[in-house]
């Protein structure tokens, strides 16, 4: 009788352990995703400032600047789902990249103290976003391993947890890296 109770107790503890492991990993993934979100919001805060500084100088890029402002408004309105959000982000990355390249044609803007500070802040945010994405990918890999590996996979299927996708670094992001290099050559 005692032996049976011990076996049951060990079994229950084992399942509680598995359950908690899965919950912990799932929450880690959500946490790191939230940190990407925070950083993206931080970038939105910079955009109005950037647009207002840049538009006095950049006459030919008015259209792009208006588009950036509209995208930002759409993204922070909260009426978009996650997929649409990723689309908006990618577009935003590309437009911001274009603006940073176009700066090369405006020497006065390049020398503007305010703009230089903004440019540094933008670089910093980009670097932080990329760090957050890498952190997200690391936690997702850890989580996905748990979902697929024995014995945690049994618990994952009971809890109906599915593997998650890794964040792929979008094409526009890669272009940004080149832009940074361009600035360093000055």
């Amino acid at each position: 009788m005692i032996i049976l109770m011990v076996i049951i107790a060990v079994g229950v503890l084992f399942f509680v352990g598995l359950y908690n492991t899965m919950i912990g990993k799932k929450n880690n993934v959500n946490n790191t995703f939230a940190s990407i979100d925070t950083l993206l919001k931080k970038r939105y805060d910079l955009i109005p400032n950037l647009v207002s500084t840049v538009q006095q100088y950049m006459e030919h890029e008015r259209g792009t600047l208006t588009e950036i402002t509209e995208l930002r408004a759409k993204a922070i309105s909260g009426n978009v789902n996650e997929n649409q959000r990723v689309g908006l982000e990618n577009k935003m990355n590309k437009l911001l990249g274009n603006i940073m390249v176009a700066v090369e044609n405006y020497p006065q803007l390049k020398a503007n103290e305010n703009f230089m500070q903004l440019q540094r802040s933008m670089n910093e945010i980009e670097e932080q976003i990329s760090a957050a994405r890498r952190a997200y990918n690391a936690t997702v890999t850890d989580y996905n391993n748990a979902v697929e590996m024995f014995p945690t996979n049994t618990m994952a299927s009971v809890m109906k947890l599915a593997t998650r996708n890794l964040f792929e670094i979008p094409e526009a992001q890669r272009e940004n890296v080149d832009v940074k290099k361009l600035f360093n050559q000055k």
Partner: protein
Amino acid sequence: MKTLEELGNYYNTALMPELIKLEEQRKQVLKKVCLVDGIAIALSIAILSLFFDMEVPTHVIFFGGFIAAAVIVGIYKWLTSAYVKNFKSGVIENIIHFIDSHLEYKGDACISSSDFIKSKIFNRQPDRHRGDDYVAGLVGKTRIEFSEIHSEYETRDSKGRSTYQPIFKGLFFIGDFNKHFKGVTVVLPDAVERLFGGFGNFLQKMNASRGQLIRLEDPVFEKEFVVYGDDQVEARYILSTSLMKRIVDFKKKTGKKVFLSFVGSKIYVAIAFAKNLFEPRVFKTLVDFSQVVEYYQDLELVIGLVEDLNLNLRIWTKE
């Protein structure tokens, strides 16, 4: 970085007069050392053998031998101290200025034990902290300081006798990092994972004294180092993919154990050396280019950290 040819020119023109002057002093010091320490050694042997004949207990003989050795070393240090001092200001300081004229040198100062503790690289508190050859200054936009240090902790055996065990011996570098950050990230040589593979990884995770284990995506870096920190995102913000590669390259270049940490917007780098660095020869000639090249390479290794880790890249909000 300067070429070997430039160093050769510098050696033949600026350094040579200093070296010749010091070589004279070295010969005189050597004569004195041979004479005085020779007498001391002869005397010690005579006294100890007398003890032996008188059948004095062995532990007393050992104790006497220990004192004699301490006296002989003391005499050696005392006789060579002026020569060592002249050598440091004449040769080492000049080589440092040859590498970068903005750097300051203090032969008898070192990185303080409080800075050493602040780095959080080593968990143990030092009980004895010594060092010399302190260098500080601005390399490009980056403020750096480094020195040779030798840090130890005290242990006592069952009889209450104390001995000192090493914590770290080598070059210790502190530089202003080019990004702002708040937390602590420590990068240590990875011995455990290489030995035990997956089980090693489990052991690393259990190392609670170090904070969270941070697994990075660069497999070469992961093989060489293990990273602990208090923030997964911040650790990756600091250890960008390019910095990881640069750290691996630097480690290969030194061929030594390299420890790093990032605390309070500063980067700390500890490079372990077994030998005493930047000390003059007493028993061999000083006028030797290969010896100067060795001093130069050891100095360039640390000063070159700024370039090797790209610390002058200031494209973020920290200027």
